[in-house]
């Protein structure tokens, strides 16, 4: 509004220039707000509340709407003077920027399925952990100082090795698979082979397999095949002959050398 001539004129008179500037400022202010700053303040307040509420609910206000809101109060800084009004202006722009950040981060977030989200997020946490170390992954109900002292630790050489266990497992025969009829025939054949013969204990394991030895010990126990035990040898009697009345109780352990499967039917 000041013409070129006026400005050159005013340069010589600083105080008058200051007066003109104030005049200009008031003129603009009146043009913007015919009713003072009241209306623009109310608009600012409403918009600030709108964005704060949306942030609290984690809602997203689209860019178009936010841009319209921003334009509406873009010139407000020219007329706002009191600290309260200027603070409100700052608060509005802060919420607007936070909303922008929120929106961007949300758009940038990959659309993961829930399971994937859990796996990816768990990785983020997992690689930052420095876990505590426990030798045993289960807690005791008693503090370790209240426990009695342990004996000397057991050496591993005394425990059964894996080879032993495997051998035992390999030659296990489930007897439920052998029928009773076939068991009888097996007994009879074994009886015929041994009847009336004398064997040394060491030789016996050469003649018989593991399951035959098992069966033999059962038969001796049940007195199906009566036997006479000496110091080094055993004599099998025929079926009908009774053993001598004063036979002493004897137990002989024989380790099988031959391993074979039981014939099944």
């Amino acid at each position, binding site marked *: 509004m000041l013409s070129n001539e006026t400005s050159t004129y005013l340069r010589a008179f600083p105080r008058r220039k200051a007066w003109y500037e104030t005049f200009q400022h008031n003129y603009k202010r009146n043009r913007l707000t015919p009713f003072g700053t009241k209306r623009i303040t109310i608009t600012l307040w409403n918009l600030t509340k709108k964005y704060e509420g949306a942030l609290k609910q984690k809602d*997203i206000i689209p860019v178009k709407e936010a841009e319209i809101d921003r334009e509406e109060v873009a010139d407000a800084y020219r007329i706002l003077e009191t600290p309260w009004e200027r603070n409100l202006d700052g608060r509005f722009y802060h919420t607007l920027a936070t909303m922008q950040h929120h929106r961007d981060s949300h758009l940038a977030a990959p659309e993961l399925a829930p399971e994937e*989200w*859990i796996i990816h997020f*768990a990785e983020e946490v997992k690689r930052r952990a*420095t*876990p505590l*170390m426990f030798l045993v*992954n289960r*807690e005791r109900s008693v503090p370790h100082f209240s426990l009695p002292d342990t004996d000397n630790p057991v050496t591993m050489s005394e425990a059964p090795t894996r080879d032993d266990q495997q051998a035992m497992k390999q030659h296990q025969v489930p007897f439920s698979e052998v029928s009773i009829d076939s068991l009888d025939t097996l007994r009879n054949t074994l009886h015929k082979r041994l009847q009336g013969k004398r064997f040394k204990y060491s030789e016996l394991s050469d003649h018989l397999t593991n399951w035959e030895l098992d069966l033999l010990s059962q038969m001796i126990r049940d007195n199906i095949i009566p036997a006479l035990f000496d110091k080094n040898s055993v004599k099998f009697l025929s079926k009908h002959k009774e053993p001598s009345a004063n036979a002493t109780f004897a137990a002989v352990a024989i380790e099988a050398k031959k391993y074979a499967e039981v014939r099944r039917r």
Partner: protein
Amino acid sequence: MTTDPNAPNDVPDPSDVKEEEEFEERHLLGQLFAALTARYRNEEGQLNIGVKRQDLQEALHINKTGLTRLLDLLRQEIAPLGLELVEYRLGRDTLYCIRTLYGVPGELSDPEYAVLGVIIATIERASKTKRPRRIATKDIETVLVARGRLSRYQLDRILRRLVELGYITRTARRITYGPRLELEFDAERREAIANASTIYLAGATATQEGDKL
């Protein structure tokens, strides 16, 4: 009584004594290591990780300086294995335990780690002035249950397990850090997790986004 110069000397060699002492010390360090990598639950149901200082002193019949010397020795021995001796306070007691120096997966499963991450991120975002720092269980539910990542039952079971393992302590409605969480994730690591989690915790689900934009 005559003195025989060739008689066997009753006093053992100093080198032998030294070797024996060293052997005993190594034996003691082994026992100490085994004790420090244990945990037990006391009468109040609280998980105690490691051993109390007082218990150690009573068991070893040594004073505080002797114990510190022994623990320093242990610290030197286990450092090359990637382990670290940690001293922490629980209530009135000072406890010692052993933790790994490097990031290795612990005993938790993936969903449990994810829930732990959400708890850390939310607590780190909460105000730093209020102590103890705690959050409402509802805040975690909005992230995990409302977004369909876990069911309410799963979340409840996971939280119960985390309490059992000493990661968090829980009241009716609120969750705070347990002693174990602060041991496994120090302040820097927790902040890093909070920063990394912004992408994961931002916004709503895809369907809601489609409605809005």
